[in-house]
C-alpha cells in the first residue's frame, strides 16, 4: 500500500464513520458502531495492532496519525452517547410530569388556647421581675378562701362572691367550696414559705354567676409581694411595668382609685386608659377608662393570720382576670366562646405551638408574626 493510499484509506474511514456517528439515532446503533471501530476485531483496534509490527521510523511517522484518528472517533462516539442519553432522559422526564397544583397531604395544625398563652406571657413577664408561679387547689376550705383573708362569716363581702359549696367539712371542720378567687394562694404561700415572697398565682376560679359577660368558671391571676419596706408606690410601679410589658406599649396609663377589699388596706382599684379603634377597645392613652385590676397593701390581719409579724413584713397583692386580659390584648369579645371548644374558634384565636412567649421576641404574638 502506497503512503498516499494509506493516508487516503484512513481519511476515507474517518469520512465514513464520523457522519455515521453523528447521524446515529439510538444508543443501540451507536453501540454497534463502537464495536465496529473499537471492538475486539474493530477496525481501530486492528489498526492499533499494526503499530507493533512497524519499524520504529514508520511507527514514529504513523503512530500519531493513528492515535489522532482514534481520538477523534472516540470523542465523537462519547459525545453522541451523552447526547442520546440526555435526549432519552428528557423524553422519559417528559412522560413523568405531575400536576403540581394538586393538593399535597396536609399536617394537622394544632393550637394553644389563648388563656394558656396569656398565662405563659404573664409568667415570662413576672419572672423577669423576680416572681415565681405559685399554685393551690381549686377546691378550697372557707378559712383560706374567706376567713384568713379577713372576710368573716357575716361580712357583706362574702355576698359579693357567689360561692359554690360542697356538703360536709374537711378534717379541720372547715366548709369546702370552689375558690372564688386566686387569693387563697396568698394564704397558702405565706403559711408555707418564709418572706421575702414574690409570687403570681394564675388559675381557675368559680362564681355562681352566668350571663353574657360572666361564666361560672373563669381565670384569675394573683400577685403577692411580702417583704420589708414595701409600699403603695411599689405596687403602682409593678402594675405599670407589668401592663406596659404585657400590652407592649409605652403609652399605657393607669388611674388608681381607692376602693375596698377586706384583705387589703389601703385598697386600690386600677383603671387603664383606652380608646376605641375599629370598634375594638385598644389599650393606651387616657381617652376612656376601664377597670382591670383590684389591689392593695396586704391587710395586717391577713399577715397575722398567716403567722407572720405585720410589724416586720408588709407587702401588696393584686388580682385580675386572665380571660379579660386575653380579650383586651387579642380582641375576642365573647367570653363564653373561651369554654366552648369550637375547632374554628380555637384555630382562629389559638396560638401555634412554637409561639412560646419570650422577652427577647416580645411576649405577645402579633398578627402576621
Amino acid at each position: 500500500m502506497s503512503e498516499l493510499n494509506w493516508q487516503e484509506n484512513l481519511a476515507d474511514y474517518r469520512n465514513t464513520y464520523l457522519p455515521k456517528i453523528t447521524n446515529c439515532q439510538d444508543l443501540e446503533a451507536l453501540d454497534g458502531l463502537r464495536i465496529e471501530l473499537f471492538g475486539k476485531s474493530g477496525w481501530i483496534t486492528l489498526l492499533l495492532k499494526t503499530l507493533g509490527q512497524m519499524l520504529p521510523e514508520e511507527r514514529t511517522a504513523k503512530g500519531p496519525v493513528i492515535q489522532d484518528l482514534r481520538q477523534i472517533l472516540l470523542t465523537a462516539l462519547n459525545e453522541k452517547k451523552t447526547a442520546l442519553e440526555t435526549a432519552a432522559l428528557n423524553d422519559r422526564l417528559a412522560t413523568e410530569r405531575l400536576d403540581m397544583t394538586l393538593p399535597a397531604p396536609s399536617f394537622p395544625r394544632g393550637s394553644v388556647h389563648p388563656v394558656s398563652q396569656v398565662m405563659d406571657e404573664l409568667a415570662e413577664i413576672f419572672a423577669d421581675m423576680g416572681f415565681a408561679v405559685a399554685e393551690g387547689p381549686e377546691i378550697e376550705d372557707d378559712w383560706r378562701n374567706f376567713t384568713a383573708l379577713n372576710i368573716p362569716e357575716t361580712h357583706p363581702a362574702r355576698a359579693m362572691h357567689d360561692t359554690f359549696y360542697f356538703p360536709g367539712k374537711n378534717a379541720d371542720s372547715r366548709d369546702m367550696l370552689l375558690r372564688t378567687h386566686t387569693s387563697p394562694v396568698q394564704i397558702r404561700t405565706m403559711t408555707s414559705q418564709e418572706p421575702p415572697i414574690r409570687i403570681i398565682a394564675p388559675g381557675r376560679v368559680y362564681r355562681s354567676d352566668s350571663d353574657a359577660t360572666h361564666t361560672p368558671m373563669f381565670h384569675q391571676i394573683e400577685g403577692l409581694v411580702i417583704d420589708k419596706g414595701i409600699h403603695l408606690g411599689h405596687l403602682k410601679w409593678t402594675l405599670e411595668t407589668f401592663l406596659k410589658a404585657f400590652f407592649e406599649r409605652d403609652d399605657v396609663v393607669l388611674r388608681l382609685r381607692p376602693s375596698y377589699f377586706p384583705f387589703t388596706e389601703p385598697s386600690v382599684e386600677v383603671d387603664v386608659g383606652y380608646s376605641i379603634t375599629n370598634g375594638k377597645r385598644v389599650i393606651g392613652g387616657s381617652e376612656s377608662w376601664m377597670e382591670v385590676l383590684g389591689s392593695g397593701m396586704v391587710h395586717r390581719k391577713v399577715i397575722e393570720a398567716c403567722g407572720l409579724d405585720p410589724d416586720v413584713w408588709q407587702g401588696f397583692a393584686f388580682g385580675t382576670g386572665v380571660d379579660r386580659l386575653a380579650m383586651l390584648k387579642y380582641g375576642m369579645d365573647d367570653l363564653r366562646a373561651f369554654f366552648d371548644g369550637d375547632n374554628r374558634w380555637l384555630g382562629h384565636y389559638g396560638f401555634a405551638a412554637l409561639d412560646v412567649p419570650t422577652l427577647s421576641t416580645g411576649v405577645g404574638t402579633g398578627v402576621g408574626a
Partner: protein
Amino acid sequence: MKFSLSWLKEHLETEADIHAVADCLNRIGLEVEGIENPADVLAAFRIAKVLKANPHPQADKLQVLIVDAGDGPVQVVCGAPNARTGMTGIFGPAGAIVPSNGMELKVTAIRGEMSNGMMCSLFELALGEDHDGIAELPDDAPKGESYALWAGLNDPVIDVAITPNRQDCMGVYGIARDLAAAGLGTLKPLKTPIVAGTFACPIDIRTDDTDGCPAFYGRVIKGVNNGVSPDWMRARLKSAGQKPISALVDITNYVMLDHGRPSHAYDLAKLTGAVVARRAKDGEQVMALNDKLYSLNPDMTVIADDNGVHDIAGIMGGTHSGCSDTTTDVLLEIAYFNPERIAKTGQALMLTSDARSRFERGVDPGFMGYGLELISSLILEICGGVASEVVKAGEAPLTPRSISYDSAYCAALGGVEVDAEKQKAILSSLGFGIGMDWAVTIPTWRRDIDGPADLVEEVVRIVGIDNIPSTPLPRGEGVAIPTATPMQKLERKMRRAAAALGLNEAINWSFLPEKEAAAFGGGEWTLTNPISEDMKVMRPSLLPGLLSAAQRNMDRGASSVRLFELGRRYFKAADGSSDERLTLGLLLAGDKTPRGWASGKAVKFDAYDAKAEVMALLGAAGVATDALMVMQEAGDHYHPGQSATLRMGPKNILASFGALHPATAKIFDLDGAVIAAEIYLDAIPAKKASGFMRPAYTPPVLQAVTRDFAFLVAADLPSGDLVRAIKSSDKDNIVAVHLFDQFVGQGVPDGQKSLAVEVTLQPDEKSYDEPELKAISDTIIAAATKLGAVLRG
C-alpha cells in the same frame, strides 16, 4: 346609690358642676357608675301659649290649635279635651322624641289638617301618671323657654357604687362630707330640729334582746294626715330610683337615703300592748311588705307586740301594721341592730332590702336621737299632728374608739410623704378627733376604721392615690432567675407538644352533669348549690368535657376533631381536702385524613392513633417509652378490646388510651369510632436535676447489621411480649427490634399468627463473623421459643 346634684348641694356648698363632682368622687374611692340628666330627653320640649283653639272641621273630638312656643304661630292638631284658647302648655316640635314611647314627632296631616308637633301631657313626657289631658302650666310660665329648665328638671343624677365598708356614704350627707374633706366645697351645718313632746308616749317600748337590738328609741305622733309628700321630696326620691308611696313612708325613706339611717313607722291603731324587740319564736311567721310570708327562728331579732311580729328587725316591716291612707297615729321606731345578726338573718331568709344593706354594714349609733327628731319634724311639717315624748330603751354602743397613729406610717405604707399637719387637717375634716401624741378618735359613723392602715388609706385617698410616685421594686443582680417548678415546666412542655402534634387546646368546665361523671367512675365532689344540673359534679376525668366539645363540633358539621385539654381531675384526700391531679386528655373523632385524590377514601382514627399521640407526648415529657409496660384496665369507658394502660412498673399508670366504649360515646351522642387518651402528669416521675452535661456518646464506626425473623405464635400472644423477649435476649448486640409484619391466613395454622421482626445488631470493636451472627440468631430464636414461638422456614 343614686342622688341628684341639687340634693347633694343641700348639704354641700359648692360651685362644682356634675363632672367635677364625679371626678372627685372617683378620686376618693366613691366610684361613679353613671351620670344621667332627666332634662336631656326633654331638651326639645318648650313652654307654649295656645293662641287659638278651633274645632277640627273633620273630627268632633279633635281641635286645631294655633300655638306659639317662641318662634311664632304654629298649627297643631290636638285631641285633649282641656285644650283651649289662652292656656299655657308644653309643645314638642317635629323631630322631638316622646320620652314615654320613644316615637319621633313628625309634620303630618291629621284628617286633612296639618299638625306641626304635639302639645304634651305629663304622662307623655314620662313625668307623671296623668294622661287625661295636656299639661297646664301657670299663665306666667315664660313662652319659648325649655320646659325642663323652667320646671327645675335640669338636675343630673349620679349613680355611685358604695363599697361594703362605707356605710357612712349610703346617705347623701355622708357623701357630701367626703367631698368636703376632698376640698370640693364646704359641708353645710345640719339644722337641729327639736320636736318637743307634748304628752307621754302612750305605748310601752322596750328591748328584750339587747344583743340583737341594743337600743330602741321611739315616740308616737297623733293626728297625722298621711297624704302625698311634697314635690321636692318626691323629686329626690325619684332621682334615687325610689317610688313615692305616701308621706309617712316617703319621709322614712328620705331620711334613709339622706343620712343612711333606716327607721320604721307603725300604724299605732294596729298595735296591741307593748312593742318589744325580742328573738323570734321558732316557726313564728310574718307577712313582709314585699307580700311574702317568712318563717322565723330564734336566731332572728324581731319587733313584736302582744299579737305577733310586726317587723323583721332591721330588714323589712310587716304588712299588718304598715302605714296606709287611713293612718292617723303612728309609732316611730329608730333602733340600733347588731350588724352580724342582721347579716345572718338576711342570709338565712334570702331577703335583701335597703334597710338590711345599711344595718348589716353598721349604721351610725350616734345618729339615733338626732334621726328621731329629724323624722318627727318632717312628719309634723308635712303630715301635721302632735308628738309624744321620746322613749329610749337600751343603749347604743357609743364607747369612743381610738387608734394610736404615727404620721410617718403614711409614707411607709402609702408610699407618699404627706406633711403631718396636712394629715391632721384631712382626718379632722372627715370627723376624726386628733388628740395629743396622735391618739386618733374614730367618728361614730366610721365602723370600718380599726387600725392605722385605715388612717393611711383615709389620708392617701384624699391626697389622691394618683399622686403616689411609682417606686421600682428592688431587683436582683444579673438576669432574672428561672422560677418555674419541674411540674410547671412539664405542663408547659406537654401543652406545646400536644399543639405541635396537631391537637387544639380546649378549656372545658370543671363540673359535669351527674350522668357524665358516673360514666367515668363518678365524681367525689358534688356541689350543694350548682348553677344548673349540667354543672354539678367535679370531673373525675377530662374526657367528658372533650366528648361534649367534640359532639358540639360534629353538630356544627366538623368532619374531624382533634382536641386536648390540660387541667385537673378532682378527687378527695383522706383528710377531706382536695386531691387535684394534673392531666392531659385528648380526643380524636371523625376523619384522620380526608378523602384525597391520591389516598382515596377518608381514613378514620383508630386506637393506634391514640397510642401514637400518647407515646409522642410521653416522649416529649422525657419518659423512656420503650421501657413502658402495655397493660389492660384502661377503664370501663373504653372499648374492652381496644384500649390499654401504659405503666412504669406494674402499678404506676402514666396513661390510658384507646377506642371509647360505644355505650360511652352514645351518652354524648357521638357515632363512629371515638379515640381518646389521658396522660396523668402527676404520675410521671420527676427527673432529678443533673446539670446540663449529656452522657458521653460517639456514633459507632462500624455499620449496623439487620436480620429478619418470622415466627408462628399463639394468636393471643401480645406481640409486644415477643419484641421484648427478643430485645432482652442479647442486650450487648441488639439495639432495636422492629415488628414489621403480622399475618393470619393461608399457611398459618388456626389459632396462630405470624409475626415478622427486623432485628438491628450493632457491632462494637470489630465486624461480626458468620459464627457470631449464627450465635446471636440462635439466642434470639431460643428467647422466642420460650414464648411458644416457632421460627418459620
